[in-house]
C-alpha cells in the first residue's frame, strides 16, 4: 500500500466519476457520498457504499476473498499442486519412467490405483509427476508474460506518442497469429526437450495480451485527478508511475495474469499433445494424453486420469482468477 498522499480532497473527487472503478480513490470516496440517492439511483449498489469504515481496495478484496468458498477451494487445490510438484515422492513413491511392457493397458490394482498405460507405466505416478511440468510452465510463463507485458504496456500507456503507436501495431500483429499454430511452427524445429522453449514461446506470444491490459489501465489511472495533482505538484515521471499509477493499474493485470496462468497450462498440454511441446521421456499430462489416445478403447483410464488432473489444475487457476476479479471489481458486486 502506498502511504496516503497529502492531497486527500483530490482523491475523493477523482473517485466520484464513473471511471476508475478499480482504484483506491473510487472505493474510498463512495463511502463518503454514495447512498441510495446516488446518480445511478437504482438503489445501493454495493456494500462499500453503506459500510461505515473506509477500507482500501486491497483489504476490502482480501476481506471478501477469505469468505469466498471458490477462492478457498481453488487456493487449496493450487497449494496441493505446488507441494506435489516440489516433492512428488511424498505421495508417489514410484519412478515415473519405470515401465513394464508386460503390464501395458492393465487396469487398477493394489498399489497402482490408476492402472497402467499403453507402455506399461504406472498412470498414478506419471499423473503425480506431470503436475511439476504444468505448474513450472504455468508459473514461469506467467511471470515472464506479466513482467514483459506490464512493463511495455505500462510505459507505452504512460508516455504515449510514437512508441505507444508502434507497440499497439505490434500487439495487433501478434493477435493476428493463432497461438497453437504459432506454437507448431516455432516449436516444431526445436530439439531441446526442456520446458524452456515452451515457456519462451508462451512469453513471446502471450505478452501482447497483458500489455494491452496494462496500457489501458495505466491510461485510466493517469487520467485520475490525483495523478494530475501529483504532476502539478512536480512529481517526477518515475515517482508518478511507481507510486501513484502502478498501485492502481496493477489490479487488472493480476486478474488477467492469474486466469492466463490456467490457460498457459492448458496450452503446454495442447502443444505436448500435438507433439511439439515437451516430448518423451519428459513427463507431461499432454504427452500422456496423446500417448493414451490410440489405446482409448482398451485402456480409457490412461486417458482419463491425466485429463482429469489437467482439467482440475486449469480450473483451479481460472477460478482463483475469477474470485480475485470479483473481489477487486466493486462494479460487479
Amino acid at each position: 500500500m502506498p502511504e496516503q498522499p497529502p492531497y486527500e480532497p483530490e482523491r475523493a473527487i477523482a473517485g466520484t466519476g464513473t471511471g476508475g472503478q478499480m482504484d483506491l480513490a473510487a472505493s474510498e470516496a463512495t463511502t463518503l457520498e454514495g447512498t441510495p440517492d446516488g446518480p445511478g439511483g437504482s438503489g445501493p449498489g454495493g456494500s462499500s457504499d453503506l459500510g461505515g469504515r473506509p477500507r482500501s481496495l486491497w483489504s476490502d478484496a482480501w476481506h471478501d476473498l477469505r469468505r469466498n468458498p471458490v477462492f478457498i477451494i481453488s487456493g487449496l487445490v493450487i497449494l496441493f499442486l505446488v507441494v506435489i510438484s516440489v516433492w512428488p515422492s511424498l505421495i508417489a513413491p514410484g519412478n515415473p519412467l519405470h515401465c513394464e511392457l508386460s503390464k501395458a493397458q492393465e487396469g487398477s490394482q493394489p498399489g497402482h490405483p490408476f492402472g497402467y498405460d499403453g507402455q506399461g507405466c504406472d498412470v498414478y505416478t506419471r499423473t503425480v509427476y506431470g503436475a511439476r511440468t504444468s505448474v513450472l510452465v504455468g508459473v514461469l510463463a506467467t511471470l515472464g508474460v506479466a513482467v514483459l507485458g506490464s512493463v511495455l504496456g505500462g510505459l507505452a500507456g504512460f508516455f504515449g506518442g510514437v512508441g505507444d503507436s508502434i507497440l499497439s501495431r505490434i500487439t495487433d500483429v501478434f493477435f493476428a497469429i493463432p497461438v497453437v499454430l504459432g506454437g507448431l511452427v516455432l516449436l516444431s524445429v526445436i530439439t531441446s526437450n526442456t520446458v524452456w522453449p515452451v515457456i519462451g514461446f508462451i512469453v513471446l506470444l502471450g505478452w501482447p495480451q497483458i500489455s494491452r491490459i496494462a496500457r489501458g489501465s495505466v491510461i485510466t489511472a493517469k487520467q485520475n485527478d490525483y495523478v494530475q495533482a501529483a504532476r502539478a505538484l512536480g512529481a517526477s515521471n518515475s515517482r508518478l508511475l511507481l507510486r501513484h499509477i502502478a498501485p492502481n493499474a496493477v489490479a487488472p493485470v493480476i486478474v488477467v495474469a492469474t486466469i492466463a496462468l490456467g490457460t498457459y497450462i492448458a496450452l503446454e498440454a495442447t502443444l505436448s499433445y500435438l507433439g511439439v511441446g515437451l516430448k518423451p521421456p519428459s513427463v507431461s499430462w499432454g504427452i500422456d494424453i496423446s500417448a493414451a489416445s490410440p489405446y482409448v478403447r482398451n485402456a480409457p483410464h490412461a486417458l482419463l486420469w491425466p485429463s482429469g488432473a489437467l482439467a482440475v489444475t486449469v480450473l483451479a487457476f481460472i477460478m482463483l482468477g475469477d474470485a480475485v476479479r470479483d473481489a477487486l471489481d466493486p462494479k460487479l458486486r
Partner: protein
Amino acid sequence: MGRYVVRRLLQMIPVFIGATLLIFLMVNVMGDPIAGLCGERECDPATAAQLRKEFGLDKPVWQQYLTYMGNVFTGDFGTAFNGQPVTELMGTAFPVTIRLTIVAIVAEIVIGITLGVVTGLRRGRPVDTTVLVLTLVVISVPTFVTGLLLQLLLGVKWEWIRPSVSPEAPFDELIVPGLVLASVSLAYVTRLTRTSIAENRRSDYVRTAIAKGLPRRRVITRHLLRNSLIPVVTFIGTDIGALMGGAIVTERIFNIHGVGYQLYQGILRQNTQTVVGFVTVLVLVFLAANLLVDLLYAVLDPRIRYA
C-alpha cells in the same frame, strides 16, 4: 462511414505485413525450408544448393519475402510437399474448415447468447449459478481433452457418431467437432452476454424504458438486448479467425482433412510453402473478420457511425 472503412483498411496493412513477415521469418529462419523437399532422405549438398538457388533461398530474407508476397498476389502460393500446388490443397481444405467454423459460430450464437441472456436476467438464481459453473468447467478443460472425451463417449462407447469424419466432411458429421471447436468460445460468449445484460439491466436507459410503461418483453428485446449484444457481436466476429486457426486440434482428433490437417502435415514435413501460404490466408481471414466486426459495430452503435 466510407472514410471509416478506408481508415480501418489502411490500419490493416501493417498488421498484415507484420503477421505474414513474422510467420515467414519463423518458418524460414528457424527451420530449413529445403530440408523437407528431398522426402525422408537428407538432401545431398549439390541438390540442396541447386534447390536453394531455384527457390531464391540464397537471397536475403526480405527479398524472399517480397518475391513470395508478389507471387501470392498473383495467385501463386507455391508447391506443397507432394508436388501439388498449395492453392489446390487450399481448395479442398478450406471448404471443410469453413463448414466446421460455421457450425461453431452458429453454436456460439444460438447456445451462447441464449444462455447468456437467460442467466444475465436471473443473476444469482440457481440457473445462473449452474450455468456459470458449467462455463468455468468448459473453459478449464482444454479443447483436446473435451474432444477426446466426447469422441470416446459418443463415438466409441455409445456409437452415436463416427469417431472420425469422412473425407467429404458433410455438415451432419461436423456437428460434434464443431461444438468441440466452439466449446471454449461458447462459454466466453455466455459469460460475456451475461455480464453485459446484467450491467445494462441496471442502466439508466433501461430504467427509463420501464418508467415509460413498456412491457417487459419490449424493454428486454428492444432496449436491453440491442445494447448488450454489441460487445458479444464483436467477440464472435473476431473469433472467426481464431476458430479457423485453432481448428488444428479439433481436426486432428476427428481426423478432419481441413486447414488444420494440411498445416499440421506441412509443419511435420517442414514444407515452408504450405505453412506460409495457409497462414497468410488465415491472417487475411482474421483481418477480414475484424473489418466485418468494425462495420457491424458501426451499424449497431450510432455513436461510432457518426463519430
